[in-house]
C-alpha cells in the first residue's frame, strides 16, 4: 500500500519552519557563532543581525520602539513573565482577570497563583466563545494587577475584543496583557495605536523555529524580569541570546507580513470551502466558536456521537494531520475546557476536530480532506451505540442504559 502524501492541517499546534528561515539561521550555527555581548568581531556581526531581527518583529507588531521587544524562549515564558512581572511590580494588587478559555500557559499559572492567595476572576464565554464586557467592567478595579486575555483562541480561532478591553483596562489604571500567540502573523496588528501593555508571541506558530518567543512590553510599563543575570535584552531577560532562532524569527516576521493578504483571502477561502464541503454531506456536525469573528485559518468542527481521537487516527491513516479537543487525546477524562466553557453538549464535545491551515495549504489538499472525512464519520458512527440506522438513536442518553450512572 502506498502511503498517501501527507496533508498538514495542524498549524495551530505548530508550523513548519519556512525554508528561507532555516537558510537565514544556518550561518549562525557555524561561522557566525559569536556571543553578541563579546568585544570582538565574532560577536559584533551577531549583534548587528539581532538588531535587524528585532526591527522586523517590531514592524510585524506595529510597536513604536524596538526596545519594546524582549526575546524569550517560548510563548509560555512570555505569558509567565508578563503576569508575574505585573504582580511583582505592584505588590499591593492581588487580583488577576483572565478568561475560562485561555491556553494552559495562562490558566495553569493562574491556578497556582490562586493557591498562593491571589484572587483570579475568570470571565465566562457564551456558546460562541464570546465575552460579556459588562462582566469585565464589573471586576476591573484598582485591586487588579493585570488583565490577561488571549487575542485569538487556539482551538476555535475566535477573537476576543482585546483592543477595546485594553482601553477599558487603561481607563481603570490596570495593566493589560494579551496572549497573541495564535494571532500574530495571521492578522494585522498595530500595537502603537492600542493601549495593550504586554503581548506574547511564539515563533513556532508563524513558521519560525520552536523555542523562541517574544514578549512585547510597552515603554514605561513597570517591569520585573523573570530571569535575572546578564544584561541581555536590556536586563529584562537574562541569558545569552538564542541568536539563530531570533534571526530566524526576524525572517519569519518579514515573511508573515508579505503573506498576510494571502492569509486573509486565499487561506480563508480554503478554510470556508473545507467547512462548507464537510457540513454539506455530514449530518449532525457543526462549527464551534464564532464563524463570523475568528482567525482565517481555523476550522473547528464538532461531529456528534463519535469520539475525536478515533477520527484523528483514521484521518492519520490517510496522511491527514489534524487535532481534537476530545478527552482521549490528552489523557484526561474531560473534553477540552474550551468546548465545555462554550456549553457544547457532551454528545459533540468529545468529537471536535480542529483543522488549522497555513499559507502552504493547497486547494487540492482541501479537496482530499473534504472527500476523506464523510466516510470516516460514517464508519465510526456505525460502531457507536448512540447511532442507529440513519441517525442518532432516539433519546441517546436513555436508549443506552448502563447499569450504573
Amino acid at each position, binding site marked *: 500500500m502506498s502511503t498517501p502524501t501527507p496533508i498538514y492541517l495542524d498549524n495551530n499546534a505548530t508550523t513548519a519552519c519556512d525554508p528561507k528561515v532555516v537558510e537565514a539561521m544556518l550561518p549562525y550555527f557555524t561561522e557566525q557563532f559569536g556571543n553578541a555581548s563579546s568585544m570582538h568581531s565574532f560577536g559584533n556581526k551577531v549583534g548587528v543581525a539581532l538588531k535587524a531581527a528585532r526591527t522586523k518583529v517590531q514592524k510585524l507588531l506595529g510597536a513604536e520602539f524596538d526596545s519594546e521587544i524582549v526575546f524569550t524562549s517560548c510563548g509560555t515564558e512570555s505569558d509567565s513573565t508578563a503576569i508575574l512581572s505585573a504582580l511583582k511590580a505592584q505588590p499591593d494588587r492581588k487580583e488577576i482577570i483572565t478568561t475560562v478559555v485561555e491556553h494552559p500557559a495562562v490558566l495553569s499559572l493562574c491556578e497556582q497563583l490562586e493557591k498562593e492567595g491571589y484572587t483570579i476572576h475568570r470571565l465566562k464565554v457564551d456558546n460562541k466563545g464570546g465575552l460579556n464586557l459588562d462582566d469585565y467592567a464589573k471586576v476591573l478595579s484598582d485591586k487588579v494587577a493585570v488583565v490577561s486575555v488571549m487575542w485569538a483562541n487556539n482551538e476555535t480561532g475566535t477573537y476576543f475584543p482585546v483592543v477595546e478591553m485594553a482601553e477599558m483596562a487603561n481607563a481603570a489604571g490596570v495593566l493589560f496583557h494579551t496572549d497573541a500567540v495564535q494571532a500574530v502573523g495571521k492578522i494585522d496588528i498595530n500595537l502603537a495605536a492600542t493601549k495593550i501593555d504586554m503581548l506574547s508571541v511564539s515563533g513556532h506558530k508563524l513558521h519560525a523555529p520552536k523555542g523562541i518567543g517574544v514578549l512585547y512590553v510597552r515603554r514605561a510599563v513597570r517591569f520585573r524580569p523573570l530571569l535575572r543575570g546578564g544584561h541581555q535584552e536590556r536586563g529584562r531577560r537574562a541569558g545569552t541570546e538564542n541568536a539563530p532562532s531570533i534571526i530566524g524569527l526576524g525572517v519569519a516576521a518579514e515573511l508573515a507580513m508579505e503573506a498576510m493578504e494571502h492569509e486573509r483571502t486565499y487561506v480563508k477561502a480554503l478554510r470556508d470551502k473545507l467547512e462548507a464541503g464537510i457540513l454539506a454531506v455530514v449530518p449532525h456536525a457543526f462549527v464551534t466558536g464564532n464563524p463570523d469573528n475568528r482567525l482565517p485559518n481555523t476550522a473547528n468542527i464538532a461531529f456528534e*456521537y463519535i469520539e475525536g481521537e478515533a477520527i484523528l487516527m483514521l484521518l492519520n491513516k490517510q496522511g491527514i494531520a489534524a487535532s481534537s479537543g476530545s478527552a482521549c487525546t490528552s489523557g484526561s477524562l474531560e473534553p477540552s475546557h474550551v468546548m465545555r466553557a462554550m456549553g457544547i453538549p457532551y454528545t459533540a464535545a468529545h468529537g471536535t476536530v480542529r483543522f488549522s491551515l497555513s499559507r502552504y495549504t493547497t486547494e487540492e489538499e482541501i479537496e482530499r480532506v473534504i472527500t476523506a472525512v464523510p466516510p470516516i464519520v460514517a464508519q465510526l458512527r456505525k460502531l457507536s451505540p448512540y447511532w442507529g440506522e440513519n441517525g442518532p438513536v432516539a433519546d441517546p442518553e436513555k436508549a443506552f442504559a448502563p447499569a450504573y450512572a
Partner: protein
Amino acid sequence: MWDYTEKVKEHFYNPRNTGPLEGANATGDVGSISCGDALRLMLKVDPVTEIIQDAHFQTFGCGSAIASSSALTEMVKGMTLDEAKQISNQDIADFLDGLPPEKMHCSVMGREALHAAIANYRGEEWSDDHEEGALVCKCFAVDSQMIEDTIRANKLSTVEEVTNYTKAGGGCSTCHEPIEEILTKVMAERGETFVPAGAKKAKPAVAEAAPAKLGTLARIRKIEEVIAAVRPTLLADRGDIELVDIEGKNILVNLSGACSGCQMEAATLAGIQTKMIEALGEFVRVVPAAKAQAHACASHAHGG
C-alpha cells in the same frame, strides 16, 4: 500520538464483531457519552452449556476503546460464562500487546461490560464499584480517585506512604507534586495539615542507622535474605527475581516476567536497591545481569 501497539491499531482499523447481534441474550452497557466512552457488549449464550457462541460490540470512544472492545469479543467466544468472568482487564491489555497507561481504563471498561452482560444474562444486579479520576501516576497507571480513596481509607499522610499503598510515585517521581496536592486536600477533610517531607526527604544518612560493616559471608546472607523477602511481591505480579552474582558494590540480578515496561522494571530495581542499602548499611547498586535481555523486554513492552 499515542504509542499504540500494532495489535491495537490493527483491531482499531479492522474491528471484529461490530454492530447489533442477532439473537443476543445477554447485554452489558457501561460508560456514558459524557465520559467520552461507552461500550455495549452483546453475547449469545447457549442456555444449556453456558458457552458464549457469539459476541458483538458497539463502542463510542477512542482508538483503544474500540480496539479493547474488539479484542474482548474475540477473547470470549467459545468460553463458558464462568471462564469469561475470569478475564481481567490486564488480560485484555495483554491480548493487545499492551496499552499506554492513560488508556488502561479502556480495558477496565471492557471487563466491566463483560461482567454487566453476564449479570444481565443471569438476571442479577450488577453494580460498578469503580470510579475513575484523572491519571496521576503514569509509571504505574494510578488515577486520582484511587489515590484519594486509599489515603482516606488508610489515613495516609506522606507521599512515601501513598507509594507503598498504591505504587503511585514509586517510579520517576514526577507525580509527587499532584500526590502532595491530593494529600493536602484529603488531610484537610480530616482536619489535618499536610506537612511536606522537606528535611525528611533528604533521607536520614544511611551510615547513621547502619550496623557495623558485615563480613563477606554475612553480607551474602543478608543479600539473599532481601531477595527472598521481595520475591513474594514479584511473584504476585507474575514476575520473579534471582541473584546472579555480587561484584563489590554491584549486585547482579535477573528480573523476569512482569516486566511490563522499562520504567516499571527500573522502579522495581530501585525499590530493591533501597532495601539492600538499608539491610547492608552500605551503598550498593542492584543491576540487571543481562542488560541485553532487559532491553529486548522493554522494546517488546512498547511494541513500536
